[in-house]
């Protein structure tokens, strides 16, 4: 236990030597990963470490149960990859104050680890706030840029809004149980109204952190402006801590929840998924696109969670454990492939010096390893077999479809709708990453930056390669993850999910009802054989006459890069079809005024608008305006008026006291 805590804080001590800090961080993450996996598989957990301080209520307690251990695994997996990546990235980007960066970075990872292992509300809140604040500093690390500061401020505002709701939930739990320790909160008996408020506050509070629709507005602003290794951590890991607490509350603390709690989570999840992916499609800033995909994937996780909650409230623990498996599996997967993609985008950004996808092109020839890993990540996130994203989304599907077993009419009506929304999400995600790969890695370079790109340093490649290898590993041998999740389901629901899902080696099947089987290994072998046969057939009988021309050149032999297909061109049909949703603003205007009639140079700009954001802006504008008016009215700067306030207040209190307010 003490070894654990030691490993968590060890890298922070090395911050004076920034390079050493990253190396130590990588190794301690590796050690944590192995320890946690071993502990989980050997069922040796539930050890607890208590530290009582002299202040009242302030106790630190750290407990490793199966849920915490799995999230420790997720965090250390990502931090291993990202720390290796940082060894090159931070020096190649040449950030100023590298020691400061190393300190905040390592302390951030330590706070993440403490958040998921804290077993006391107060110590949880302390580490939660440390985590939020440190990530804020990391977001505004390049603070010279106006956009960075704005994104950072929006982030810190939203995250504190969420923390306020979390505190309300904790205080409600404290009032009912008389204790801040999570031990005493387990399956606590609450009356239905308190239960509802706790549910709502947890949903809003942690939903803000997770980037759930419609509380996601900070995510597409903060993630793109942070350094890439930090966005990988934030998007991959930090928003997962919110999922962790949601699982804790909805399956561990609250008991006998009504079915419509799960339904609300399911609904919000499906909305986030669809919304996130549709806006992702319209972006051409690579990192902002990935940020919107985070919203989408949080949505998918919430869908799995919601369906598990539905089963749980209808007393179907086996199916509930299946839904939970889907949610946690997707959490792990999303952490892996989203960090991989952010690292990849950081690598392209490092070499081309732009985040605009329209200026990339042809990078696959110049940065082969980065391109390979990025493509693996893309296939995973688009939920295509045989990689890990496919497995967890397949589980989510099955779990959604199995919801038909619940005998409630509304669920019968809505569940097919949710499943089809998930399908639409998958399709859009695939389209989106076809766009990313096609525009940025294929074709020929569209700018000087892309033309002069070269492969990144070896540590960056190792970091990305590690995560890419995990994508493949978890895809082909998904039983590893199921074995890791099994202790969690037996902790939360009393059912071991692994015994019911694996009938044959390397094959996953849905529990009880022979609804579907999946073996990604078999699938990929079959796929490879099929491709081979097809190749032979084409060679043998096909038209073998080939003509070489550049990619995206539409078959014409021209060499001008600007004639290629563009990212906005690719997504233009979808933008048109869903115009009611995007409110696109498209404009063509001449760049040079005097050449208006003779060979004008035209520029085309497409901009889509986040509808939810404008709602927020409107609300804030009205609020700020009215409160400014009120403040101006009350605080008009005259001493006499202030004195009058004091007089009136004291008279009012006197009257109140006399009128029986105080005996």
């Amino acid at each position: 236990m003490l070894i654990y805590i030691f490993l968590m804080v060890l890298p922070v001590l090395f911050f004076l030597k920034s390079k050493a800090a990253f190396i130590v961080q990588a190794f301690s993450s590796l050690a944590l990963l192995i320890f946690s996996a071993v502990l989980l598989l050997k069922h040796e957990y539930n050890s607890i470490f208590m530290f009582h301080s002299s202040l009242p209520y302030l106790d630190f307690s750290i407990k490793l149960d199966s849920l915490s251990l799995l999230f420790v695994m997720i965090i250390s997996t990502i931090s291993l990859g990202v720390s290796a990546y940082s060894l090159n990235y931070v020096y190649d980007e040449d950030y100023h104050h590298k020691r400061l960066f190393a300190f905040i970075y390592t302390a951030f990872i330590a706070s993440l680890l403490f958040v998921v292992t804290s077993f006391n509300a107060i110590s949880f809140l302390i580490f939660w706030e440390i985590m939020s604040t440190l990530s804020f500093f990391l977001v505004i690390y390049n603070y010279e840029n106006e956009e960075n500061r704005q994104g950072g401020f929006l982030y810190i505002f939203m995250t504190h809004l969420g923390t306020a709701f979390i505190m309300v939930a904790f205080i409600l739990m404290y009032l009912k149980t008389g204790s801040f320790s999570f031990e005493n909160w387990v399956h606590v008996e609450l009356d239905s109204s308190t239960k509802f408020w706790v549910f709502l506050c947890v949903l809003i509070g942690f939903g803000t952190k997770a980037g759930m629709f419609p509380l996601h507005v900070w995510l597409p602003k903060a993630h793109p402006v942070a350094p890439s290794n930090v966005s990988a951590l934030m998007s991959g890991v930090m928003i997962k801590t919110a999922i962790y607490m949601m699982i804790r509350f909805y399956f561990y603390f609250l008991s006998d929840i009504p079915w419509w709690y799960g339904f609300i989570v399911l609904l919000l999840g499906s909305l986030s998924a669809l919304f996130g992916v549709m806006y992702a499609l319209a972006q051409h800033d690579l990192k902002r696109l990935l940020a919107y995909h985070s919203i989408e994937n949080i949505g998918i996780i919430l869908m799995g969670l919601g369906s598990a909650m539905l089963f749980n409230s209808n007393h179907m623990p086996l199916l509930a454990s299946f839904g939970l498996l889907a949610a946690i599996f997707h959490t792990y997967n999303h952490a892996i492939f989203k960090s991989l993609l952010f690292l990849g985008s950081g690598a392209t950004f490092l070499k081309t010096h732009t985040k605009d996808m329209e200026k990339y092109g042809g990078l696959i020839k110049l940065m082969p390893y980065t391109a390979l890993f990025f493509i693996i990540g893309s296939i995973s996130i688009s939920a295509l077999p045989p990689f890990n994203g496919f497995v967890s989304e397949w589980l989510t599907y099955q779990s959604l479809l199995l919801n038909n077993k619940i005998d409630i009419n509304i669920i019968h009506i809505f569940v097919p709708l949710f499943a089809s929304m998930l399908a639409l999400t998958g399709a859009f995600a695939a389209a989106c990453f076809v766009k990313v790969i096609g525009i940025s890695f294929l074709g020929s370079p569209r700018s000087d930056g892309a033309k002069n790109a070269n492969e990144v340093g070896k540590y960056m490649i190792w970091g990305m390669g590690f995560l890419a290898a995990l994508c493949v590993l978890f895809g082909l041998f998904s039983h590893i993850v199921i074995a890791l999740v099994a202790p969690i389901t037996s902790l939360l629901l009393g059912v071991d999910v692994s015994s019911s899902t694996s009938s044959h080696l390397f094959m996953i099947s849905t529990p009880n009802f022979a609804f579907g089987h999946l073996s990604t290994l078999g699938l990929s072998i079959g796929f490879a054989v099929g491709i081979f046969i097809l190749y032979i057939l084409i060679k043998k009988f096909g038209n073998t006459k080939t003509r070489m021309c550049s990619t995206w050149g539409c078959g014409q032999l021209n060499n001008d890069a600007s004639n290629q297909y563009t990212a906005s061109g690719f997504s233009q049909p979808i933008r048109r079809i869903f115009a009611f949703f995007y409110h696109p603003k498209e404009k063509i205007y001449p760049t040079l005024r005097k050449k208006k009639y003779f060979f004008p140079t035209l520029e085309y700009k497409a901009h889509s608008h986040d509808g939810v954001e404008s709602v927020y802006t409107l609300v804030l504008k009205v609020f700020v305006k009215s409160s400014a008016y009120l403040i101006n009215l009350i605080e008009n700067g005259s001493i006499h008026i202030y004195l009058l306030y004091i007089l009136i207040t004291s008279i009012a209190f006197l009257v109140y006291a006399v009128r029986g307010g105080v005996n």
Partner: protein
Amino acid sequence: MFSDFIELIGAFVLVLAILQITSDRLYFSIKVYAVQSFFVSISILSIGIYSSSFDLYVSSFLTLVIKTFIIPYALFKTIDEMKIKREIKAFVNITNSLLVISAIIIFTFLLTRYINIGGSVIAKEIFPISLSIIFIGAFIMVSRQKPITQLIGFLTLENGIMLVATSVTYGMPLIVEIGIFFDVIVGATMASLIIHHINHDIDDMDATSLSDFKE
């Protein structure tokens, strides 16, 4: 019998507070304040004799020295330096002020009928009297424009507090009272200094012009 005497003294203090409202000359205001403080010190002294408490002798002596002599002297100096005799640019003129404070006095007497003071009470009627004085002081602070008059309003308010603290019960602990005296002294000194500076810098002895400095 004794309580009647204390209540008589309290009535004098109240009358002086009302007189304070009607005055529109600074010298006169300060003199009224000095006399008022004198009556407060007599009230404290008599309670001290009645209850033979040494603390109250000290407190009475301090009231006499500080409030009847030192503070009025300092205020006279300030006024002399600033060469202003007449002031009282009031938001509420004297006639209306009198109406308002008569309403205040009726209100406090009505209000205190509902209050039950536990423990041994020397003079029950002192309570509404001193409450009225407190509110009159606050009213002076609100309704007068010049800082020096506001300062006098504050001092009147403080006299009311002193009266209620010593006469309704047997006084506060000595250390608290000494603390209050220091507060008053420091407050009066600071205020005189600041008033002096305001006068010097913006050539206008008017607290309303302070709002020009707002942000």
